[in-house]
Structures are given as structure tokens and as C-alpha cells.
């Protein structure tokens, strides 16, 4: 029914993650959310060194272990088994969120259910349906230097996830800086969203057609 459903698909999950990886600044400390953001470390550009923070109490998160090396005491915030690196440091949860709330983490790359043109973010619950909780997302969006959202541009019904106003309970108000979707990259600016680039095979018009939020030029 909407044009979005017939529109171009743009980037796949890996391409979105690769685009998000280009946001990483050399020498920074970064937190990655669950979902597509967990693919980002596979695409860190040559010459860029980042230290990944896992909010359950670790800086310097390494890759998944090989089979047989899993350690029940070493998991990431998605509860997946991981490994440590030579520069790893461990700490408790209060300390961990101290560095998040205190602005020491440069950037968070997170998934979302909805983002609106004011930079409001909803990614933690659907009333009456899905009650999982915000985990560390509210602390992250309030505390880190820059918030980049990676998500599909539309939901499974073809409706825009980039809205004029979020309909779901918020994770944070005016917290999103940039959104990377399968159709392109948009920044939250005064008055709405600004198109930074479009995905392969996606025109600016395709992107506008699939977006409910105000696009400013």
C-alpha cells in the first residue's frame, strides 16, 4: 500500500554495520548495543583503533571465543560469551555506569524501534506486548558523547520508523545524533532530519517517500 514496500531495499545488515563502523574515531571508547551494532567490529576501518565497552563491566572487549574456550564468567551485555584482550579492564556495574554517565564513552551505536525528528529515541518497550526493559540504554543515551542509531528504515508493514513524534515510551529525549538505516544516513538537525547520504541504489526521493519525519535540506 505504501511506496516504501515497493521501494529499493538498499543496504543489508552487514552493509549497515560497515557504514556504522565508519563513524568510529581512532583512539575512542565506544559502546555497541545488541542486534546490528554487534556486527560493527567486523568492519572497523584500517588504522582505526577503538576500545569497546561492555556495560556489564568491561573495557577492551574481544571477539567471541573459539569452541571449548567459553568462560561463564566472561560475557558481554547481550549475555554472549566473549574474550578479553591485552588491554582489557574489568570493573563493577556502578563503576561502569559512572564512566557512561560521566561522559567518558565517546559514542554508543544502538538499535531502535522508533526515532523522531527531535532526536527522541524509543527502543525498550511496547506497552501490553513486549516488556523486556531498558537495560543500560537510558543511561547510555543520556551519558555518552554521541548516539548513532542503526535500524531498518521501515517496519515489517512498510511504515516509517523515522517519525514526527515517537509513539512508544521513550528511552531518551533529544538524544540521537545520527541514524543509519538500510536506505541511508540522516542527521538530527534543527527542524528535522537532514539526509547525509543514500544507500546504494536508493535515490533521495526513495528515502523521502519512506520517511514520515520532516526532512530538511
Amino acid at each position, binding site marked *: 500500500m505504501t511506496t516504501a514496500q515497493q521501494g529499493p531495499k538498499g543496504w543489508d545488515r552487514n552493509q549497515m554495520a560497515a557504514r556504522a563502523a565508519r563513524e568510529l574515531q581512532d583512539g575512542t571508547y565506544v559502546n555497541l548495543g545488541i542486534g546490528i551494532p554487534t556486527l560493527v567490529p567486523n568492519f572497523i576501518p584500517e588504522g582505526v583503533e577503538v576500545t569497546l565497552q561492555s556495560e556489564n563491566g568491561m573495557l577492551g572487549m574481544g571477539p567471541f571465543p573459539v569452541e571449548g574456550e567459553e568462560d561463564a564468567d566472561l560475557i558481554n551485555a547481550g549475555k554472549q560469551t566473549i574474550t578479553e584482550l591485552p588491554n582489557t579492564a574489568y570493573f*563493577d*556495574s556502578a563503576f561502569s555506569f559512572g564512566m557512561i554517565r560521566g561522559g567518558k564513552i565517546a559514542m554508543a551505536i544502538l538499535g531502535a524501534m522508533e526515532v523522531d525528528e527531535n532526536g527522541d529515541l524509543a527502543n525498550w518497550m511496547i506497552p501490553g506486548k513486549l516488556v523486556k526493559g531498558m537495560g543500560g540504554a537510558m543511561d547510555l543515551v543520556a551519558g555518552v558523547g554521541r548516539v548513532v542509531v542503526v535500524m531498518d528504515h521501515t517496519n515489517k508493514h512498510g511504515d516509517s520508523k523515522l517519525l514526527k513524534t515517537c509513539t512508544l515510551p521513550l528511552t531518551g529525549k533529544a538524544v540521537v545524533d545520527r541514524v543509519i538505516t538500510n536506505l541511508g544516513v540522516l542527521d538530527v538537525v534543527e527542524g528535522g532530519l537532514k539526509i547525509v547520504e543514500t544507500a546504494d541504489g536508493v535515490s533521495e526521493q526513495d528515502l523521502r517517500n519512506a520517511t514520515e519525519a520532516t526532512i530538511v535540506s
Partner: protein
Amino acid sequence: MKKVYGSAKEALDGIVHDDMLIAAGGFGLCGIPELLIDALVESGVKGLTVASNNAGVDDFGLGKLLATRQIKKMMSSYVGENAEFMRQYLSGELELEFNPQGTLAERMRAGGAGIPGFYTKTGVGTVIADGKDVKSWDGQDYILEEGIFADISIVKAWKADETGNAIFRKTARNFNPPAAMCGKICIMEVEEIVPVGSLDPDAIHLPGVYVHRIIQGTHEKRIEQRTTRPAA
């Protein structure tokens, strides 16, 4: 000053009562006080309020206390892995107070540090801020969150000496130190109790002043999401 007890059941003797507030360490199933949870199930204590980041899974960790309906209210940040929890909550049998994860950790730390309240920007403009005092510094709003003062703390460490000086292992540290701090009485289960003098004083993560009762036991240490990469 005897802190070492023979079993989780003995360590809980005389300090557990209905309707009490318990702070529990652990993140997911990592670093949870699994032996003390089992002993609480066995004790039959009811009407518990439990401050814990997660609620275990259906058949392990705090999920066991949910299955027996011994928990009245959870204070948590994420409960997504527990079907029975979801059922009890959606049917109104269980109260749930969502706390942002960092706010929950800081509320425990603050309680243990004698701080009844603190202001944070986490949750400003969300339902978390509803009914909470707001103050502004330099044009930024902050909401008042209260310290948690628990009746007891149940935590898990890797090693402790007989005076309770404790060391945690890797990410199993998580909520255990702040949870330990905020309880009037803290019961700690460890994988190994070592003689006083055998731990490096510079390497202690939690000083024994916060720990009142210690037990040693065997832990299942279940892995929630076993994830691997192909061998090179």
C-alpha cells in the same frame, strides 16, 4: 568474629523473614548467588522484594523464586529472558519497578555509601522521571533517584578470605560489589575460601567490612548465550 558458615541454609538462618528487601548480585546468569537463591527457595520465605538487574531464567537463578511465587516485586532493568516472569507481570501477580541499569547500580552503591538520594540525567523526559523531583544545573535537567537500603544482600565472588575480603573474576563482578554494599547484612557465596594473608591486599575488590557471612560451594555457572567463532 566468625564469618564462615557451613552452608547457604545456615548462613541465612535467623536473618530471613517475609516481605523483606533483598539486593542480589549478578548480570543475567553471570556471577549470580545461585546457592543462596536455592536456600531462599527452600526457606519458604514469601513476599520478597528483590533488587537485581535481571530475574534469571525460568529454571535457574531468581527464576526459581519466581516459579514458587515467593517474590512480590522485582526492581530490575531487564527481564527479557524469563517467560514465567512475563506471565506473572502481565497478569498482575508480580510488581515490577523498572530501573535504568546504571541507576539501579548507583542506587545500590549510594545506599551502601550512606547517600539517600542523588540526581541523574538518566531517564529525563521518559516515564522513569514520572513523579520524581527535577533539578537543573547549567540548563540540564536531572531527576532524583533514591539509594537502596536492603535488609540483606546476596552476592557471589570468586575467592574470599575468612574475613570477607573478596576478589571477583572477569565480568562476574558486575552488580555484586554495589549489591553487597547496600545490605544491612551481606551474605556472600564463593568458589573458594582462602586463608587470611593469602590474597594480595592491593588486589581486593571488596573489603571484608561489607561482608558478614561467607559460604563456599560448588557453582553450576550456567552460560545463557553460548556464542563462538570458527577456529582459525
